[in-house]
């Protein structure tokens, strides 16, 4: 089993990820965005539903 150690030494190397970084990071960022938008819209809906109850 290969060791699980930090693969990248500089931030810049981690971002680039051997020129695949753009794809990897963009997917994760978009997923994070979609998750937060989804949960925020529903808590917002929940809140204004509670007000007029």
């Amino acid at each position, binding site marked *: *089993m*290969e060791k*699980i150690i930090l693969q990248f030494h500089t931030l810049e190397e981690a971002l680039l*990820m051997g020129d695949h970084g753009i*794809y990897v990071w963009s997917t994760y960022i978009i997923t994070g965005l979609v998750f937060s938008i989804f949960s925020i819209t*529903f808590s917002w*809906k929940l809140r204004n539903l509670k007000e007029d*109850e």
Partner: protein
Amino acid sequence: MKNLLLPLISVKEYLNLNKMIYPYVLFLGIFFMLLGWIVGLLFAPIDAVQGHSYRIIYLHVPMAIYSQLIYWFMAIWSFSFLIWKIKIAPSMILSAAYIGCMVTFLALLSGSVWGIPTWGTWWQWDARITSTFILFIMYLALLTVNNSFQNTNTADQITAWIALVGVINIPIIKKSVDWWSTLHQPASISLTTESSIDLSMLIPLLISIIGVGIFLFSLGLKVSRWVIYRRESD
């Protein structure tokens, strides 16, 4: 069997159960999800063939798994609604549909973005992407059908029927799409089969699968609370 379940799934009990466990589930979900992703992104070793772009697997595989799982979850609830007339089932179906729709969209997104470095095009007629796309349309169809009826009872029953018929269709679509794509070109690097992946990559994958699952469960709690309140208020 039915009166065994009923005290458990009455609306009021579900609501305060929901409120009680929601913060813990949310925290656990986010913790494990981020743990799995960080380890997968920064600590897992590089893949010999694909280089770093394989790291999207920690996102794509959980999404693909849960897009199927949520449809089965909805089918079980619609079965219980149609056969045992459990009161809470329609709101569970609707909230699961919202989440499943989002998860399938993410699975599609990550699948196609992953395709760019490996195949050079963002859309590739791979069996899994096509069946996930069909699944995405079925989620959208379920949502549009649900809010196009005035009488809530007919809306719930028809949504339950479509979910039930849809779930029978998923294995059929999967098999026929596999059969179709294997004839066209040999299944190239198929994205989601757990090929003999090295243990060091498998651990973060399992953590992220569990983490995403718990997080989606917390989203489900929130959305179902909103659906129930909305149903109560109007």
